[in-house]
């Protein structure tokens, strides 16, 4: 068990190394002068020189890379070109809304998707099952920003139940906070819910044909107990895997959702950084999001042993 954890943790190193090298090289891979690219179309030669010197782009590439890795090791993600603030500070300021939105979405998705998937598998072929599958295909297909605007139109503009845009921090009180993230998290959760529901259904459906399920029914256990204790538990590994992999979709979705609902989180920081060509910020955001994604998938891998004691490493 301990060896397995260590092996999984060590396996992260090459992945993050590739991410790091790629993020570093991004700017150098593009044709043309990186300093000129950052400076934009209307920069004077002096501006370009200034940026070149500030980012150390006038030094040989291996020196630049070593310096960059050294800074990262000290927790320094660089300084924003646009706002002149340290990137760690910018990210820190934007963390709360994104974190709140993601947690709300993950909870909402799992609470809806897993029972829905289990129920659809239990009643395979019925109307509920068909409806679940239709929902799953729709959830994959209707882009988050389209869902977001439709929700906003119906619940905020027509019915006036919830605020259309903006974010209220938790410090302003729990109810305004909750009201401000309901629509965004519903919009963001559709794709994730569709994904988890589909895999849950497929996974449970496969387990339901096993002998021990028939045995459990035969010894008189009620269907909910058989489904939850016997079927779901044995079907858990693919479900946990897809929850981990789905985080990538969620991170992409956050960028869009925050733009649609005008939420000042990391996603908006990303979009602003692109529009200003604020390169250090883009680099840092990719590193941070990729790191989170890899870490969550590590947790998912480790969680297998909790759900399935047969897995011994």
């Amino acid at each position, binding site marked *: 068990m301990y060896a397995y954890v260590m092996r999984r943790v060590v396996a992260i190193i*090459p*992945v*993050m*190394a*590739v*991410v790091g*090298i*790629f993020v570093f090289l*991004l*700017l150098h*891979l*593009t044709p043309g002068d990186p300093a000129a*690219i950052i400076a934009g179309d209307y920069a004077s030669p002096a501006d370009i020189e200034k940026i070149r010197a500030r980012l150390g782009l006038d030094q040989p590439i291996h020196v630049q890379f070593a310096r960059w890795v050294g800074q990262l090791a000290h927790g320094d993600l660089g300084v924003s070109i646009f706002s002149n603030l340290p990137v760690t500070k910018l990210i820190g300021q934007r963390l709360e809304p994104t974190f709140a939105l993601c947690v709300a979405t993950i909870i909402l998705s799992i609470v809806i998707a897993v029972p829905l998937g289990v129920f659809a598998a239990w009643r395979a072929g019925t109307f509920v099952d068909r409806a679940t*599958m239709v929902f799953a*295909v*729709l959830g*994959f*297909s*209707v*882009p988050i*920003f*389209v869902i977001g*605007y*439709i929700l*906003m*139109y119906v619940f905020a*503009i027509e019915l006036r139940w919830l605020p*259309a845009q903006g974010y209220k921090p938790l410090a302003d009180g729990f109810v305004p906070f909750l009201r401000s993230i309901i629509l965004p998290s519903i919009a963001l959760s559709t794709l994730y819910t569709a994904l988890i529901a*589909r895999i849950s259904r*497929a996974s449970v*459906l*496969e387990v339901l044909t096993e002998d021990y399920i028939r045995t459990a029914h035969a010894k008189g256990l009620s269907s909910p107990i058989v489904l939850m204790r016997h079927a779901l538990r044995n079907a858990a590994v693919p479900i946990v895997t897809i929850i981990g992999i789905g985080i*990538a*979709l969620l*991170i*992409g*979705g956050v*960028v*869009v959702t925050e*733009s*649609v609902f005008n939420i000042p989180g990391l996603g908006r920081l*990303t*979009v602003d*950084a*692109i*529009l200003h*060509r604020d*390169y250090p910020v*883009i680099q840092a*955001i*990719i590193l941070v*999001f*990729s790191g989170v*994604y*890899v870490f969550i998938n590590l947790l998912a891998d480790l969680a297998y042993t909790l759900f399935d004691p047969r897995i011994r490493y």
Partner: protein
Amino acid sequence: MAAVAGAGSVYPSGVVQARAAKVAEFARRNPTVIVSASVLLLMALMAGFAHHLASDPMALDPAVRLKPPCMMETFGFESRTSCRGWFGTDHLGRDVYARTVFGARISLTVGLAVAALSTTFGLVIGLLAGYVRLFDAIAMRVMDGLMAIPSILLAIALMALFGSSVQNVIIAISVPEIPRVVRLVRAVVLTIREMPYVEAAVSSGTRLPRILLRHILPNTFAPLMVQATYVCAAAVIVEALLSFLGAGTPPEIPSWGNMMAEGRVYFQIKPWMLLFPGICLALMVLFVNLLGDGLRDTLDPRIARRMR
């Protein structure tokens, strides 16, 4: 005889009937494939003949700015005198219907180009990785690293560097899709290379390129076709999304993402600018995904049984 077989047909009538019966049988068993393929074909035709179906998408007319769609009038939303065009007009007085029809061109172009580009690169890398040990070790580390970056974020970062053009959008969306194709192809190659008939080919002295092309490549086609369809659906969404965020197709080109970006500001009072391209986008992606599901069920009944 010729009259019975039909004009110009070289086959005897029995063969023609058998073929027709086969097609009908395929359609009966796979309604999803037929329906979604037909809808997509219709969309492609509309995009292709956009010049005949709609007026100039660029034509400005400040006199008719932000007029509601006449389609809504039918349901009694606003007064009949003020409506303009089927889908209304935008903030510059351009016809939203015309722009939506022309916007389909960008979505289809990007979707198909990304599917072609990423499957081609993915196929080549995957075949080599599945067969050449050393290349496998290096390539798969790089692919794992690329897959650790959320794909939309990677596409956004690439667009920020490349600058906006349709060609760059295609490249930026293809790069994050390649690792997924590589993994798929590599998995197929690793299974097939252990098959007795490949061993037989190797032991009878067949050269590597021929083994790859004749014995392994054909086995990758079915899963690749399904994957390419899903890649196409994802690409259509990501293109719209990049344009929506202001880092995609150049703003002067009518694409669904650009239209939605322009419609954002007016959304609370004039929602049609955003809703019509949004609904078209959702419909196109839905039918591409359905086509993918249908192809998967048709081409790989084993997976289909598990997923359905």
